């Protein structure tokens, strides 16, 4: 199992995945915080929140919690895309055939990939959270926001980071399952994006289901419920869905003709 994890981690570390992934997370996390401050600095505060967020509101102790959860959708998509590329890369190169010959227990291969993707997702969450917090301090200095009370909100920020990590793990495993099913990065990314639009439409038509379907459940958990949905039902839905995706992935991989 450790060998399988190490093998998958070696693949995840390849430059075509790791550098774009890190760059996207750092850039989007920083931009989202700059955007938060710049819109809050506008006359009347940010028009993107209700009630409008003012610069003075960003001095609150829970500001760090908001910062950590701010870039969730983009970070989630980036993590999902990276996990899709990680899995489909093994199929498209033909590597998976060699892997299944040297390791006939396919569940070991899958567990290794799952563990590596989950670790990468947690690392992305930590990097995203640290970037967001660091960007928050820089922006606060630029816009003259008092950060004196932020330290008292550090515990909340740590909790928000844990939630962000859980949400990212769910996004990563959902992407990997989709990739295992379709075995094509373009098809998997297209299905993921079309599904996200479809889920948005369903949520608009039937608001009682918000926070229970995959994309909204994962993002509700990742934002610690700050997106307006109830946290605990989303947490349960995320755990159930992640197990369901994992079971589906096992079902797909254990089907022995997976490489034909």
């Amino acid at each position, binding site marked *: 199992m450790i*060998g*399988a994890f*190490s*093998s998958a981690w*070696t*693949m995840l570390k*390849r*430059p*075509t*995945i790791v550098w774009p992934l890190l760059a996207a997370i750092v850039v989007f996390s920083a931009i989202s915080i700059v955007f938060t401050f710049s819109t809050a600095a506008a006359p009347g505060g940010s028009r993107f929140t209700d009630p409008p967020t003012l610069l003075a509101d960003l001095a609150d102790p829970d500001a760090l919690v908001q910062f950590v959860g701010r870039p969730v959708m983009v970070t989630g998509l980036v993590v999902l895309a990276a996990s899709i590329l990680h899995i489909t*890369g*093994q199929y498209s*190169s*033909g*590597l*998976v*055939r*060699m*892997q*299944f*010959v*040297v*390791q*006939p227990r396919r569940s*070991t*291969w899958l567990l*290794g990939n799952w563990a590596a993707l989950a670790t990468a997702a947690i690392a992305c969450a930590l990097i995203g959270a640290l970037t967001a917090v660091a960007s928050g301090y820089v922006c606060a200095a630029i816009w003259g926001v008092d950060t004196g009370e932020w330290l008292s909100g550090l515990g909340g920020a740590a909790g928000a980071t844990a939630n962000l990590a859980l949400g990212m793990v769910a996004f990563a495993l959902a992407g990997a399952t989709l990739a295992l099913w379709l075995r094509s990065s373009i098809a998997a990314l297209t299905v993921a994006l079309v599904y996200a639009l479809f889920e948005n439409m369903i949520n608009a038509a039937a608001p009682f289901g918000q926070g229970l379907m995959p994309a909204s459940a994962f993002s509700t958990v990742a934002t610690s419920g700050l997106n307006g949905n109830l946290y605990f039902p989303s947490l349960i839905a995320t755990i159930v869905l992640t197990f369901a995706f994992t079971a589906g992935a096992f*079902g*797909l991989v254990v*089907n*022995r*003709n997976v*490489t*034909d």
Partner: protein
Amino acid sequence: MKLNRSPAMIVLRVLSALELISLAVILTNRFTVHLPVVTSTGGPLHGLFYVSTILLALFLPLPRASKWLAAVPGVGGVLALWRAHRHTPAPADEPPSALDVTDDQRRQAIVIADRVTATLSSDTRIGPLSFAVPRGTITGLVGPNGAGKTTALRLMCALVAPSSGSILTADDPSGAAARMGVLIDSPGLLPSLTARDNLLVLARLAGWQPAVADQALERVEMTPVAHRTVGTFSLGMKQRIGLAAALLADPDIVILDEPTNGLDPRGKADLRVFLRELSAEGKTIILATHALDEVEELCDHLIAMDRGRVIFQGTPAQMRRMIPETILCRAAGPSERDAAAAAFVNAGYAVALDRDAIRVTADTGHGAVLNRLAQKAGTTLTEITAERPTLEQAFLHLTSTRATSDAHDRAGNEEEDLEVPA
């Protein structure tokens, strides 16, 4: 366990029946008594059976068309089962073939396929295949494109599950299962990883020491470029790394699919030398190719396939013997040629005239006899050349014979159909 008798298949049958029955109950209720309880419970139940049928069909190794058919509302499960049943081969019903593996072949074999069939997700079927790969040989798996060579290789290394029959690998002398190294289709490398990291991905997954990657790189003389990314390599270098991947942890059986594809003449020659070295170490090499010159030069055992079936197995010499040898005789002029030809025919030889030459169907050792016959007939032969059939000629003869016999079978069937009284 056969798919048809697997518990999952039985569950699929039950779900399909429930899907159909629940639909019948809902429709009957709708057009007759209108019981609200049936409407309120029947609908969700039918939906549950419908979704369960689709999901189960999706995960079972059914033909792709069956998986799609399962999504048809109401009768999808039944349609999927019908389609799967139509496409399930029934090899047990087929008569034993002359190409089945003999006990003698079985004793010497390292890989034995016993009436194996496989259905791929593209609905392509191959088999039943029976063959034995003798231990320590370079075995060529030959056949035209689409003959099923790659699928046969995938069956050997358990990448594809047989629908029926079995394919077994004999133990090595220590009693452990023989280890396999494969290079199928393409080298299977990630271009943005270094050569060494590509091998480490496999070594770590298998639980082997990282040192095996270095040893394999040394074996294929790629140590100097071990830390370069594979994306910068030429095709020949990638093929070498693919070979190194196949040779990780010193396998007993090396399976190679079209390994010389895209290689320049130098690369091909190097590969041939390398394969001979591996064979000299006692490894069994299974080489799928349609380059018969390569097979002729390298292989000491052959398995020929055509349209998903094994049509020959034996040595290259045995395959060549499937078409008669000929001797080409030339005489000084047309009258001498005709006289010699008459003498050969009188002696019982089959001859064919070819301009100034006579082509005699006979073993190549008959040259001296033919010369004597010509001298007795008062002519002198200016040239006697033994013509050994090439492997390519033998293979073409074999496949054309099979195509002809298939055409005869079809014609026979059509005639039989016509003879059925109206």
